[in-house]
């Protein structure tokens, strides 16, 4: 009985492939960093959600987890990766991005402002910079001088804008609360999937160009997000105090017309 079903499979696949575009497009992503981190859990979550979308639109996403030492390797070409998601300290991250100039490299953990000022064309920072977090806290304190709230990219208690749905499924699927780095990992995988589905292609150079254009990514923080000229993702920052989200930056009435751009730098330093 089992055998007869197995023999049917190639037949069914054959029939299936008669429909144009029915073969899924295989999209490979690399994660470079330590295993067992919330950042990696975020990437895994993003990937499994990308595969939910891919089931309907004809893509299949696969993840290869590589140790930090892989930052010194050439990952383009034979690896066939569409993009690299990196959870690395700043020096290793720079070396990875410089060594693989044709691959989009997502930074999901390093907050250093210098990395943004480096302005590498293929280095995209999903995690907010130190400066963005400081600006968010400064805006918040202008309205709430006594508040001790700290700035975060994400918080497991945030509920608005469908954040509660994301927090809920992340905790159920990964067994840990979603933190800043988990969110960044999730977001990197999801934005790749959005663009691959839209473009029906996973070539890294085309993907990089698309990422540098208007992506209007929905990071489940209530705004559409795009990368700035310096490679930093514009985003809402949460103010968290005593385990509660007490506010959001840009802070209304303080940030002014600059909106999201009131948080951190956007442009590359003049050379």
């Amino acid at each position, binding site marked *: 009985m089992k055998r007869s079903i197995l023999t049917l499979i190639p037949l069914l696949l054959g029939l299936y492939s008669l429909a144009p575009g029915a073969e899924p497009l295989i999209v490979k992503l690399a994660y470079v960093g330590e295993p067992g981190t919330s950042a990696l859990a975020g990437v895994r979550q993003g990937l499994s959600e990308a595969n939910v979308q891919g089931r*309907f639109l004809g893509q299949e996403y696969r993840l290869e987890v590589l140790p930090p030492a892989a930052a010194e390797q050439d990952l383009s070409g034979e690896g066939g990766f569409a993009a690299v998601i990196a959870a690395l300290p700043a020096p290793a991250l720079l070396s990875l991005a410089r060594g693989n100039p044709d691959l989009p490299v997502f930074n999901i953990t390093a907050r250093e402002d210098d990395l943004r000022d480096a302005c590498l064309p293929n280095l995209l920072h999903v995690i907010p910079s130190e400066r963005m977090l400081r600006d968010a806290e400064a805006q918040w304190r202008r309205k709430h001088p006594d508040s001790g709230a700290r700035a975060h990219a994400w918080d497991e208690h945030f509920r608005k804008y*469908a954040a509660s*749905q994301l927090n809920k*499924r992340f905790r159920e699927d990964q067994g840990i609360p979603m933190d800043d780095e988990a969110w960044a990992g999730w977001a990197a995988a999801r934005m790749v999937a959005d663009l691959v*589905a839209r473009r029906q292609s996973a070539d890294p150079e085309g993907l990089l160009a698309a990422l540098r254009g208007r992506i*209007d990514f*929905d990071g489940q923080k209530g705004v559409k997000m795009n990368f700035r000229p310096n490679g930093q993702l514009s985003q809402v920052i949460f103010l968290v105090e005593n385990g509660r989200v007490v506010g959001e930056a840009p802070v209304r009435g303080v940030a002014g017309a600059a909106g999201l751009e009131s948080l951190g730098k956007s442009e590359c330093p003049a050379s």
Partner: protein
Amino acid sequence: MRFITTLFLALLSLGVMAEPTHRVFVTNEKSNDVSVIDAKSNRVIATIPVGKRPRGIGIAPDGSEVYVAVSGEDKIVVLDPKELKITREFGVGNDPETFAVNPKNGYIYISKEDDAKAEVYDPKTGALIAEIPVGLEPEGVAISPDGSKVIVTSESTNMLHVIAVPEHRVVANILVGARPRAATFNRDGTRAYASSEIGGEVVEVDMASHEIVHRQPLGSDKAKPKDVVLSKDEKLLYVAGGRLNKVMVLDADSLEIKKAIPVGKRVWGLALSRDGSRLYTTDGVSGTVSVIDTGKNEVIATIKVGKFPWGIAIDD
């Protein structure tokens, strides 16, 4: 005698359509009740407590029942539109939000946000008829007037899923802008329109090819569009503009923006009267329903309802 019997049977068969009450039913998400407005006087004539977080609302094809999704209590509550009483309820599990009633088979098609599926219920029995896997965070549900096609939007995977009835399977997936919220069909089912909340745009889809034929950004980051409704002559598309606090009026062919009608704050829900002369909005933050005269496309009445009015349906 025979004549009378025949007449009686004829009346009985006609009797499937209940006499319309000309009442507008509004779910109030944060006051846990339904406001009932008399469409002739534009006055609230009753407020019916229904349970925690009522959101989606719809009316049976024969007008005999009003269905309310009570999100906080995982159930659909059934109201009698004449008596204004709860007649029964049935469980639908896990946070029901938006649904549509199929005008042909009378089934409720409901999106289950946390389960990535659409479910089909027979409201007469409460039986689950079908479960259809869709993308993440399914939200808006629209049904073609002939009942043969259902669109479910998946908010987190940015798709319109086209579901065939009665097969109840997905036959097409259309990628649209970020966070698709709501959709509607034209009368013959050849076109569909959908709003994207984060993308801040509206698309027009050709339902034969499943291709997007027009895409219209609403021009402001405040525009977080939700409900979309066609005018009776199908020349105009009304779009609830969310934080714009306006209903946008678009040309239904080109999607060119023709007008913006200021309404209350955070406008989400829209419903058009059967004769097409009135458009009703739910203005979430203001706690009002705005009544628009579609002849002039101006607000002619603003009616205070409960806290955070969300869904709206008309028995007419």
